[in-house]
């Protein structure tokens, strides 16, 4: 059901390269969302040959479920090794599901400055959105049941599989 990750990464990379070529992305910088998004972003960053280092966003401090889930013990800090003011940003995550992670990522991003444009690239886009957020480019669209989720493991080898959550 899931296509090969190489195929998906190529597809994503090509779509982004097109956008750079036609000028809709102007000298973009890339930001991956911790952790799966960073793994995907590392590969895209290399294939697109972006000059500036990859940025990493850890949205732990911006989650809206802090009161029910709490803080993960090891929050590796966000690292944006460039000015984002006025820049074009490719925001990368592994799976777009409810949209809440992206909401949190955008909030954090704007605490660093005001980008000119933010484009969302995800490996998988699945149903179940709870916020008005869509991907600009994606590798594959999946229709899953409520108890299914896509799990990414990595960084080497990068693998994706669909798991069914067990009933408690």
């Amino acid at each position, binding site marked *: 059901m899931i296509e090969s990750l190489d195929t998906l990464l190529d597809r994503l990379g090509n779509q982004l390269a097109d956008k750079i070529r036609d000028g809709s992305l102007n000298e973009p910088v890339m930001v991956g969302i911790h952790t799966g998004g960073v793994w995907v972003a590392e590969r895209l960053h290399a294939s697109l040959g972006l000059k500036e280092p990859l940025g990493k966003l850890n949205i732990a*401090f911006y989650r809206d479920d*802090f009161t029910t*889930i*709490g*803080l993960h*013990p*090891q929050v590796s*800090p966000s*690292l944006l090794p460039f000015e984002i003011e006025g820049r074009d940003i490719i925001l990368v995550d592994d799976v777009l599901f409810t949209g809440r992670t992206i909401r949190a990522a955008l909030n954090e991003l704007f605490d*660093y400055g005001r980008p000119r444009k933010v484009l969302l690239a995800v490996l998988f886009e699945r149903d179940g959105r709870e916020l008005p957020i869509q991907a600009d480019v994606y590798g594959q669209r999946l229709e899953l049941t409520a108890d299914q989720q896509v799990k990414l493991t990595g960084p080497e080898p990068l693998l994706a599989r669909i798991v069914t959550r067990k009933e408690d």
Partner: protein
Amino acid sequence: MAVHFVRPKLPKLAPDPWAIQFDQDGNLKHLLTIEGLGPQWVKRILDTAEGFMSVTDREIKKVPLLRGRTVVNLFFESSTRTRTTFELAAKRLSADVLNINLSTSATNKGESLLDTLKNIEAMQADMFVVRHDQSGAAHYIARHVAPHVSVLNAGDGRHAHPTQALLDAFTIRRIKGDFAPLRVAIVGDILHSRVARSQIHVLNTLNTGEVRVIAPRTLLPNDVEKLGVRVFHNMREGLKDVDVIIMLRLQRERMEGGLLPSEQEFFRLYGLTEKKLEWAKPDAIVMHPGPINRGVEIDSRVADGPQSVILQQVSNGISVRMAVMALCMGARSEN
């Protein structure tokens, strides 16, 4: 100061008197003392603080973690540094902060501590940060607050000042890394210092190679060795091969009678000067919880010198207090 405060009695049968710091699911709820935290929780707090350091470095020094929560600083004893860093920490987590200076407030009008507490609780506070001149005050308050309220001890009498000890450990770890090979000397007024007690606990929890105290006999508590320290009365011997020197303030306001001949005499014997600093390792760092008494326990040239990390301690204190607040007010269960 007319504070109506009854010294709490710890239940004799409780297997672990510090268990009150955790909720039923084993999550940190109150931070009252370093005791009972164990290496796992101490490391977890330090790791979380490391994450918050990045927030402090950027342009907008604020994350929305505690948005809508109310933190009340309850200070029964005055303090500038501790209160302001707690306040900044809470604000950087987007909490609302109320500062109540009780040494000049309702308690002077005869209101009991519990009545004061209940009134502030009725204002829907989520966390009390408590500083009190009597040991055990924070425990007492933690025992009597509503179930959803967290209590942080910001210093109680001679007993404990856990966030200060944690920020000291955090500062040492950032500069020196592993604690196992380190020799740390705590110098000066150990007797009156809640900071020293908490520092000794945190350093031993993290398995520090050797923890030393250097002080005249009159400024050491009885049985200080039982805390797990090596005792020295002489700076030259005590500072030999030391990696970290923690100077303490001489707490004249807590001294009764003739514990010391004079400040000049204390400075001559125990004050940290450039000359005495040479007895420690060449890369030793100098720390002080503040406020510093220049020329009493530390010479200005050392306090402002290249080996001093005193101001780093203050900055690190904000991240460490953010970590403790976030962990105490976070989830009650982790999935």
